[in-house]
């Protein structure tokens, strides 16, 4: 939902419209205390200005409950730390404003990733394992230093390199929520990023060995929640279609099989 400049800098005068009272419910759970069941803790917050979910959480932690666990780093949707389920949908807390939501707001941690506590999940460990699984680095014999590259190709690589590893795609994915070994959209995107990079020498058939299976490309059911929930608007639909085409081709014609 797009807000106009005039609404931000010249909001309606206070005496004309009463501020909403937000009813915020946050899932609290500490895996180190398995005897205590998860529960929804309720807070009320007055919406007296344009405020993001992250602002709400910071205020709660600084002023009410310093034990509340959530992750946030950059405040500007470039680091990917603050992804969580906001009223049942994955999104970044920093760029979700309460004005876009009804007055009842429910916050849960992302599914799929290991829970650290409350709204904090362990994306770091999962993503590091994904780098190793996809060998997420340039594979090049590297004997020549060739700085010449086509700008359009570099732009295409940058387009896929913009992933901030927030985990929203995995959290929204039907396959990922049924199978914790699924590589997820983030993993397939990483494969695609190196696949289209002219500096990477891996072939279609080599990629088939990595993602040409049910835990890889063929596990994807094409519901495209990843495309819808990606906060960076990375073109997952086209990327997955391209990769599926290449993998089917490699599966049928690949020399190694």
């Amino acid at each position: 939902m797009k807000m106009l400049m005039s609404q931000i800098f010249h909001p309606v005068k206070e005496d004309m419209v009463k501020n909403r009272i937000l009813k915020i419910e946050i899932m609290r759970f500490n895996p180190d205390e398995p005897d205590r069941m998860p529960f929804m803790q309720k807070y009320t917050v007055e919406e007296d200005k344009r405020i993001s979910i992250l602002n709400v959480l910071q205020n709660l932690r600084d002023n009410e409950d310093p034990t509340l666990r959530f992750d946030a780093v950059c405040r500007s949707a470039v680091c990917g730390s603050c992804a969580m389920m906001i009223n049942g949908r994955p999104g970044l807390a920093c760029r979700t404003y309460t004005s876009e939501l009804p007055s009842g707001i429910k916050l849960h941690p992302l599914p799929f990733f290991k829970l650290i506590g409350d709204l904090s999940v362990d994306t770091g460990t999962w993503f590091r394992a994904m780098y190793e699984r996809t060998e997420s680095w340039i594979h090049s014999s590297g004997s020549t230093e060739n700085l010449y590259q086509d700008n359009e190709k570099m732009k295409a690589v940058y387009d896929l390199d913009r992933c901030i590893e927030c985990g929203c795609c995995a959290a929204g994915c039907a396959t990922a929520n049924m199978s914790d070994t699924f590589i997820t959209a983030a993993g397939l995107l990483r494969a695609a990023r190196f696949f289209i990079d002219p500096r990477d020498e891996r072939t279609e058939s080599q990629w088939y060995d990595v993602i040409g299976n049910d835990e890889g490309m063929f596990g994807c059911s094409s519901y495209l929640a990843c495309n819808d929930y990606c906060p960076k608007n990375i073109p997952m639909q086209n990327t997955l279609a391209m990769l599926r085409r290449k993998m089917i081709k490699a599966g049928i014609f690949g020399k190694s099989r």
Partner: protein
Amino acid sequence: MDSIIYSDFLVIGAGLAGERAAIEAVQSGLDVKIVTLVPPRRSHSSAAQGGMQAAFGYSEMSKDDSSFEHFKDTVRGSDWGCDQKTAGLFCDSAVDAVKELDGWGVPWTRINDKSGNDGLIAARNFGGTAKWRTCYCADGTGHSLMMAMDNTTAKYGIPVFDRCEAVSLIMNEDRCTGAIVLDLRSGKPVSFIAKAVLIATGGYGQLFEKTTNALICNGTGLSLVLNTGKGVLANMEAVQFHPTATVPDCLLITEGCRGDGGFLLDVNFHRFMPDYEPEAEDLASRDVVARRMIRHIADGFGVKSNYGMHLWLDIRHLGKKHIADNLREVREMCINFLGIDPVNELIPVYPAQHYSMGGIRTDINCCCEDYGIKGLFAAGESACWDIHGFNRLGGNSLAETVVAGKIAGRKASDWIRLNNPEISMSCAEHELKCQSERIRKIMEKSGGVNCFEIKSSMKKILTESAGVFRNKRDLEKALAELKELLKKSENVSLKMKPAYSSPELPEALRITGMIHLALCIVKGALLREESRGAHYREDFPNRNDELWLKRSLFRLNSDSGEPEVFYENVDVSDFPPGKRGYGEK
């Protein structure tokens, strides 16, 4: 996590500088471990937008550029406050660093104008530079560098321990042999024992209320060094304010906007910068533009808003295609956070704290040995390697992280091989005991002061006294207030005491260190009775090269419990002080 973890080389901080150093050390055959507050790609390095300076000279507007031109711009930008030998080494190394990153997968934007150089690495214009020199990937350069760097870290299999905060250095006399690290998952302290340690923990922007910095930029690495009572910080009063942070959230809008042809407008939609800076116009150095903006607002030309006065940044005339290609992250940020599309609307901006020129003082090899601690290295924003002096040029910070990181990694490896230092278990045990005791005391205490309140008072004090404009009266007042706050901070207790790791514990553990850093800034600013770069004293508005070609140094005095200030000379023999070509006459 094990309670003792060994390595040859311990890297604290997994941003660009830390990981670059780790890669260099692993390549030389050492066992390296990295501890970091957050997963590496969440580091503040990834928030850098505009680019990285390196004098390729491929672009049409970069002809005849050289590392010597880069050097001269850097020294002018620093207002002759930088270390010229180090700046020279840095400028000579930047081009190779860009090439290396290309090999690691950074999709540098290429020249695409049929000039004959098509396909070579492009450069854009940035503030305070004689040539177009800033290499970039659209306006997500830091992100792309961080991706490539962390991919390379994974390639070499370097272990990264995320959600770990170093709380003290393990010292054997004047030698650093590791760090005590708080495992933020469990809340337990762990000993990381190493032959040498690198600190690359970034800047101290979170000392200020209005900052573009991430929430993790608390300057903890600097506190670690100061706390030893032996290590030295430098130029802490040199704090950069970026001209174009958004109102009200202080999100960074890259200097690349103005580099690509955008400009600042006032309340009358008048482009005012050329009135003040006829040559550099909107692209004078950041310290100069920030001062011009605030003065222009004080003269009555600011735009009123519910969040205070601001000015406008106009990039509409660059056109939708250019913005979508080269300024797409800025556009996305404006749409998501401000609800405006800069393709056809103006961006509200105001200067905010952005970069810490000051830091852990090192020599040209990124080594702290000459400054009190053997076996300790520092690189990136947390260090005062001192290529930025009193004002950093845009595009020089990303370049510094990778250039200094590589040098630090290599020099640390050499140092370890040459000295093969012994590891003393008793020192580690002693330090672990001290820190466990400190944690226990805080956990058990009740009825003390709340660390969030202290932090917010400190931010307010610093913002009011040590901002873009400074003067004796405000700084003296701030000094007295901070001393009070320091006393209070020793009586911190937790508001809630859960059995598990609570985010309040690390906050409480770092608050005293943060006030120490605030004291350094205010003391340094009060004593430096001149204006140089970003340090501007209303009561001493001129640069004074006779008295102040000096670097401020800070060490913790164990008797008073406060940092004390002393000085070293700045060598200006390669490029003697002169006019910058922009700024106040």
